[in-house]
């Protein structure tokens, strides 16, 4: 009796197992935290497109994503800052970057009497974060904000304490607009900040700015919006003051569309377009050009194709800026380069 029951159980278990293995395929990914809400929404929606593909994405940070794709422990990686040449060389195969969505980093503040839309020049932002502009009523701020009563108080600078793609985009922007910043501090997911307090995560910075009178910091657009914190208009390369919005971020990428390199490893900060918001950034998925497993590779390519078309429509709901059409067209071309282990292209099946 016991034997029979045991045998039955084993048979059932085997059936369940086989059924699963044949029908479903799991794609594992890891990396950036910034696009995580977008990715998990996409992975959920994609079940309706292809019920047999399941995604398991761990938002462990861009550094971890790069490490794991290099070590081939995941099927795809994700990062907020493009991989360096040195990092690409360390990988066992060629890794391709696929931009997915974009976001804006906004300068947010908490100063009595100053509403949203304080006008800031790149020089003013760099000066504040370098610790050279210390007062709210500094001439550099007063010059671009006539009619706004600026208080004669010290600016409390707030930055991220944890390594993050947000900091990367912000410091990348400052490195482009300020030679002094570039020489003294540079760009990175964590830098040696000349001044200020560190808050952990976007929510940490938001909390500090919200609580500390006369403070100023940087966060992702969505955090400033959902906490109804004011944020600044920033003067872009053409001299126009642009308010951060999904449209002005997409415009920033569009301004780079013609000059975008084929591997998409480009920063879109300080974009030249008239409507472009200058502190914008892309986020990427990392995929090996030559897939080890043809079936998995095919599923991955099909998902990327869906992401570039239908997927983009869902970006705005979650406050991510969709990619401009020119960039998407270029990505579709790049996707054709992804091959199986035999070198046969996987796209277009």
């Amino acid at each position, binding site marked *: 009796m016991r034997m029979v029951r045991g045998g039955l159980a084993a048979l059932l278990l085997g059936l369940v197992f086989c059924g699963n293995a044949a029908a479903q395929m799991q794609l594992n990914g890891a990396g950036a*935290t910034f696009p995580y809400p977008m990715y998990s929404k996409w992975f959920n929606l994609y079940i309706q497109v292809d019920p047999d593909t399941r995604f398991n994405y761990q938002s*462990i*940070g*861009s*550094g*971890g994503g*790069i490490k794991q794709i290099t070590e081939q422990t995941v099927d795809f990686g994700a990062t907020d*800052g493009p991989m360096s040449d*040195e*990092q690409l060389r360390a990988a066992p195969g060629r890794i391709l970057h696929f931009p997915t969505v974009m976001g804006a980093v906004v300068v947010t503040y908490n100063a009595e009497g100053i509403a949203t839309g304080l006008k800031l020049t790149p020089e003013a932002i760099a000066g504040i974060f370098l610790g050279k502009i210390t007062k709210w009523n500094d001439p550099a701020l007063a010059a671009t904000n006539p009619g706004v009563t600026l208080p004669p108080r*010290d600016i*409390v600078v707030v930055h991220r*304490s*944890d*390594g*993050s*793609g947000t900091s990367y985009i912000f410091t990348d922007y400052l490195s482009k607009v300020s030679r002094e910043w570039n020489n003294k*501090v*540079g*760009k*990175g*997911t*964590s*830098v*040696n*900040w000349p001044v*200020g*307090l*560190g*808050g*952990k995560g976007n929510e*940490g910075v938001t*909390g*500090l700015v919200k*609580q*500390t009178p006369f403070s100023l910091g940087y966060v992702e657009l969505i955090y400033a919006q959902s906490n109804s914190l004011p944020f600044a208009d920033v003067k872009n390369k053409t001299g126009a003051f642009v308010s951060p919005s999904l449209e002005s971020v997409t415009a920033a990428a569009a301004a780079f569309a013609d000059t975008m390199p084929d591997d998409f490893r480009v920063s879109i900060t300080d974009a030249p377009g008239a409507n472009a918001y200058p502190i914008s950034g892309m986020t990427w998925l990392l995929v090996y050009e030559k897939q080890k497993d043809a079936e998995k590779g095919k599923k991955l390519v099909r998902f990327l194709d869906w992401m570039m078309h239908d997927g983009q429509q869902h970006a705005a709901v979650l406050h991510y800026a969709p990619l401009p059409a020119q960039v998407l067209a270029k990505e579709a071309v790049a996707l054709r380069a992804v091959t199986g282990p035999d070198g046969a292209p996987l796209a277009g099946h």
Partner: protein
Amino acid sequence: MDSESLEAPWMAARPTVRSTVPRRRNVGDRVFRLLTASFGLTLLLVVASIFLVLCYQSRDAVRTFRWAFLTTSVWDPVAREFGALPLIYGTIVSSLLALAQAIPLSVGTALFLSELAPSWVRAPVSFLVELLATIPSVVYGLWGIFVLVPWMRSYIGPALSGTLGFLPMFSGPNYGVGMLTASMILAVMIVPYITSVAHEVFQAVPAAQREAALALGATRWEMIRLAVLPYGRTGVIGAVMLGLGRAIGETMAVTMVIGNRADVSLSVFAPASTMASVIANEFTEATYDLYLQALVEVGLVLLVVTVVVNVLARLLVWRVAAPAGGGH
């Protein structure tokens, strides 16, 4: 830290119970002995492997920076320069400041509970004190951000700089977050540990000691000073070291209120950074190998600091225990 609580220093004096029954060859006993010995060995292996892995994973950083890692104070991932001095300073100073606040509070509470409190107060109060120990540290951090930081900015900070502002310790701008705020959170977090251990220590003081002091005409305070405190000295030091160990390793709550700035500053209002907080902050986005190795080396230094503190504690307990130990 838990091993510390299992084998608190004042217990060391207790003689080990040895069986007087002649040893028989009993299979069950032998199996039990082997089993428990292997459990003990596992713990040793875990500690040893943690140490070895930290050493191995930080070998390039150790080779690159050598002693400069401990003596320089620039932490700049972009320039690939890593000096952990501000982090070591932050860890040690925040923990010591926390102890300075926690010791009077917890020893006082423990004395009140064991000597003065009526029994209907004792049970609920000691329950509440122990309840403090079960609150997750992230909850302390949130309380810190929403309650302690605004208090610090509007009341405690201005009061301190208004009265003691001439000292470099209490000068400089006060943002609400910073070294002092972090040490206050730490103090609240370690109070339950020190209090409950000290309470038990004071309860273990023989009633005869107290009665003898009272019989000689001592007041309540003199009785505590002459009979209870000297008797419990070793145990209280053990309790304090337990608290210090916990303060050194605390991560989440500290990260949320310390301001995260790798600077050595004399002012307790200034933002600072600790070894544990920098690991928690930067580990996920450490984008190149040397950076990761530097963070692992910070972990190694943290482990060594913890071990050194514990060894010092043991030495202190032995020294203090030596004269008192002859009494019984």
